[in-house]
């Protein structure tokens, strides 16, 4: 007597039997050996389902959240980038043709830690936006998502990323408002300064791996 193969026995366990299996079913009804083999398969599947559930070694939520926020921010920055450049260009024009109050530095660059740059009247918005873009590019090149980070670093980075998202939303909002109002211009400068400060902090966190103090 030819017994059923494992494949045929497994087919018989599938819902919605194919017509071609009628013969196999008829054989099974009379063959105790095949019935026993089928019972073994049933028991094996039951044992597989009853295997202990493995648990992850540590909590991953903060890392996931940090990556999610960073990804969302990058998307927003990508879109906002075009507007920012246009804004920077228009501001530079105002600086050149305006009343001379916002002259900026002679070389047009910001020296030292950007979050130390105060709105002391001679810092122009175009330069701070450029600095923000430099830091954004530095972060992109460093690519923190591809690196292993500990939970504490992930927590701090996630918090900074959240703050950056908030600042970015405010910058977008101000971008849509009338730029000729001086108070709004000052607020824009403050927001971009804050953004640069946060980007610097983010770089510090990733580079020093949780030795960042003061957060």
């Amino acid at each position, binding site marked *: 007597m030819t017994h059923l193969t*494992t494949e045929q026995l*497994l087919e018989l366990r599938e819902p919605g039997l194919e017509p071609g299996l009628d013969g196999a079913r008829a054989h099974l009804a009379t063959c105790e050996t095949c019935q026993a083999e089928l019972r073994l398969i049933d028991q094996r599947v039951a044992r597989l389902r009853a295997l202990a*559930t493995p648990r992850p070694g540590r909590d*991953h939520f903060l890392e*996931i*959240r940090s990556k*999610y926020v960073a990804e969302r921010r990058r998307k927003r920055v990508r879109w906002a980038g075009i507007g920012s450049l246009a804004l920077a260009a228009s501001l530079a024009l105002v600086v050149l043709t305006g009343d001379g109050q916002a002259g900026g530095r002679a070389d047009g660059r910001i020296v030292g830690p950007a979050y130390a740059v105060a709105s002391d009247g001679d810092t122009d918005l175009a330069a701070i936006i450029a600095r923000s873009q430099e830091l954004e590019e530095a972060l992109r090149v460093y690519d923190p998502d591809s690196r292993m980070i500990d939970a504490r670093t992930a927590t701090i980075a996630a918090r900074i990323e959240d703050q950056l998202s908030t600042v970015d939303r405010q910058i977008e909002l101000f971008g849509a408002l009338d730029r000729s109002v001086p108070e709004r211009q000052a607020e824009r400068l403050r927001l971009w300064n804050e953004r640069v400060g946060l980007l610097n902090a983010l770089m510090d966190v990733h580079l020093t791996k949780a030795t960042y103090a003061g957060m």
Partner: protein
Amino acid sequence: MNAFPLAQEETLLPLVRRGDPKAQESLYRAYQAQVYALARRICRTREDAEDVLQETFLEVFRSIGQYRGDGSLWGWIRTIASSKALMRLRRNKYRDADELHDDVAMPRREDTGLRMDLEAALERLSDTARAVVWLHDVEGYTHDEIATMMSKTVSFSKSQLARAHARLRLWLGEEAVA
């Protein structure tokens, strides 16, 4: 297997879609064990399974707007997790030959008289065979669905399952009682 009552799910999902951190955390806490268990059974190492866990939830948070509630939330998350785990297998190619063409009817000499526990036997299967066994027998996917996920044919999935069962039977030293 739904980790949330439907009412709670309906409250939570709009918040997850808006990127609310607390809602995302609730969703993660509710399903992380199932996602990890699935990933761990398919992937060869714990590190790979943890990477799959992260990739799965990142994709869930990113794509939650696409979940329309047609099927269960766990079903949707599970499909993402399975797909990520299979992608990880493909990427790693742990075993070059992957034992796809081994003839299970001819046991290797070292298998004779060998008896191991189910965990060890499952680990010993090829990556592909183990994935098919787990997806079909435990997660309840059909051969059609597995074939689609693996970009293979239905008969490939069926033969992988049959070969895997034949091997497990041998390695577990099971004896049929008629």
